[in-house]
C-alpha cells in the first residue's frame, strides 16, 4: 500500500478546467466574429419546414425509467464488486482464493436471480408504443 501525494489528481482538475475554458473560449472567440441577424423564423424549433406545433413533451415510454432503475442497481453492484475483484488475485496467492470465489458467486447469483425475475416478468421488454392498439 504505497502512499501517494495528492498531486496525482492535478491533471484531473486541470483537464476539467481546461475543457471548460476551451468551450467558453471558443464561444467567446466566435461571439466576436459571428454574424447576428435575428429573424423570427430562425428562433422557432425545427420541424422539417413546417411551423412547430404543440409542446415538445409528449407521453413517454415508462420503460425509460425502468431501464434507469435496473441500471442503478447494477451500477451499485459493480461498484461493490470492483474492490473484491481487485483483491482476488492477491487472495489467490495467499491461498484463500476459494473463499473469494464463493463470495463472488453468491453475490452474482443473487443479482442474476434479480435480472432473471425482471426478464420473466417482461420488465426488460421494450414496448414499441405505449399507446399501440392491441393486435
Amino acid at each position, binding site marked *: 500500500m504505497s502512499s501517494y501525494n495528492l*498531486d496525482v489528481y492535478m491533471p484531473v482538475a486541470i483537464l476539467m478546467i481546461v475543457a471548460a475554458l476551451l468551450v467558453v473560449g471558443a464561444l467567446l472567440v466566435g*461571439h466576436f466574429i*459571428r454574424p447576428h441577424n435575428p429573424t423570427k423564423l430562425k428562433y422557432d424549433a425545427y420541424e422539417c419546414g413546417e411551423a412547430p406545433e404543440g409542446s415538445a413533451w409528449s407521453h413517454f415510454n415508462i420503460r425509460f425509467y425502468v431501464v*434507469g432503475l435496473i441500471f442503478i442497481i447494477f451500477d451499485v453492484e459493480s461498484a461493490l464488486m470492483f474492490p473484491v475483484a*481487485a483483491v*482476488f488475485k492477491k487472495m489467490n496467492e495467499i491461498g484463500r482464493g476459494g473463499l473469494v470465489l464463493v463470495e463472488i458467486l453468491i453475490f452474482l447469483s443473487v443479482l442474476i436471480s434479480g435480472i432473471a425475475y425482471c426478464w420473466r416478468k417482461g420488465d426488460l421488454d421494450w414496448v*414499441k408504443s405505449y399507446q399501440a392498439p392491441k393486435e
Partner: protein
Amino acid sequence: MNDSIVSFLSEFAIYKAFVASVSAKIGFDATSLLTFVVFFIAVLLVVNVMALIGGLGTYAERKISADLQARQGPNRVGPYGILQFLADGVKMITKEDIIPRMSDKFLFIVAPLLCMVGVFATLAVLPFASGLMLTDLNIGVFYMLGVSSLVGVGIFLGGYASNSKWSMLGGMRGAAQIISYEIPVTLSILAIVVLSGGLSMKTLVEGQLGVPWGWNIFHNPFTFIGFFVFFIGALAESNRAPFDLPEAESELVSGYHTEYTGMRFAFFALAEYVEVFVLCGLAAALFLGGYLVPFNLGKGLPLLEQFLQLGSFVTKTLLLYYVVIWVRWTLPRLRVDQLMTLCWKYLTPIALFNLIGCSFWMYFFEGKSLWVLLFKSGAKVAAGHH
C-alpha cells in the same frame, strides 16, 4: 501505483537539477510548483492532440466512408483534402449562434460543456506509454467509467433543453442507451480486473505481454468473448452506428443536437470523436496489450522505450478506430427495442457469464493464460522427461 508523468520525469537527473536550481532562485521548495507546470503543459499538449485527432477523425471518417462507397471524399482543401477539418472548424466558428426561443437557455449552454468536460477528463488516465500517462490513479479504470457518464447527462440535457420533439426523443433514447450499455462494459472490465488484480491502468496493461499471444484477448476464451462485448458496448456508449439512434439522421432529423448551431454542435461532435478514441484506447489497453512493445524492445533506453510504447498504443487504438468507422458504414441502424433487447437480453447475460468464467479461471489456473498453460507447462513436462 500512482505514478504520473512527473514521477517519470523525476527519474531524470536533468529534471532534478532543474528543480533544485529553480528552488534556489525562488527560495522555497519548487517541486509542487514545477509539478503543476509540467502537468499543465502536458495537459495542454494532450488536449491539443486530442482536438487534432477529433478533427482528423472527421476527415478519416469521410475518406474511409468514401472508400467503402466507391467515391472520392474530400480532396479539395489541401493535399488529398487533409485540411478539410480546419475548413470545417472555421466554418463552425463563424456560423450564427441561434438559441431557440422556447429552449431552456441555461441547460442549452451547459449540455455541450458537460459532454466536453466528461470526455476530456477521461484523458487523464489513458495509458499512452508507461511514463507518459498523465497520471496513473489507483482507481484508474473506475474513475474513467465514472467520468464518462457525464456525457450521458450532457446528451440528455441537450435533448431536453432544445425543447423540440425530435431533440427530446433523441435525448431520452441517447441517455437510455448510454446507461444500458454501461453495464456490459463495466462487467467486461470487471473480468479483466479479476485477472489483473488491480484497478490502476498500469496494473491492467502490465498484466499482459507485448507479444500478441500474451494479450488479454487471448488469455482465455472468456476474455475473448469479453473483448467483443466490450467493443459493442463501447460503440453503443459513444452513439456510433449501428447504435446512433439518438442522432439518427433519417428519423429524428439530427436527434438531440438538431437545434445546436455552429460551435455548440462542434463541441458535441468533438466530444463524440474523442470519446470514440478514448474507448478504443481503453479497449487496446485492456485487451490488446496497451502500450507494451513485443519482446520489450527498447528496454533500458528510456526515451526510445517511451517512444516505441507510444507508437504501439497509438497504432492499436487507430486500428480499432478504423474498425469503428468501418462498422458504421457497413451495418444498418438498430431500432430502439432491438437496441435494448441486445443489451439486456444478450450482452448483459454474456458479460455476467464471462465474469463468472474468469473468476473460475482465476481460481483454478491461478490466472495463467492459455498459452502459458499449454506451452510453458508442456515445456516443463518435456524437460522433466530428459
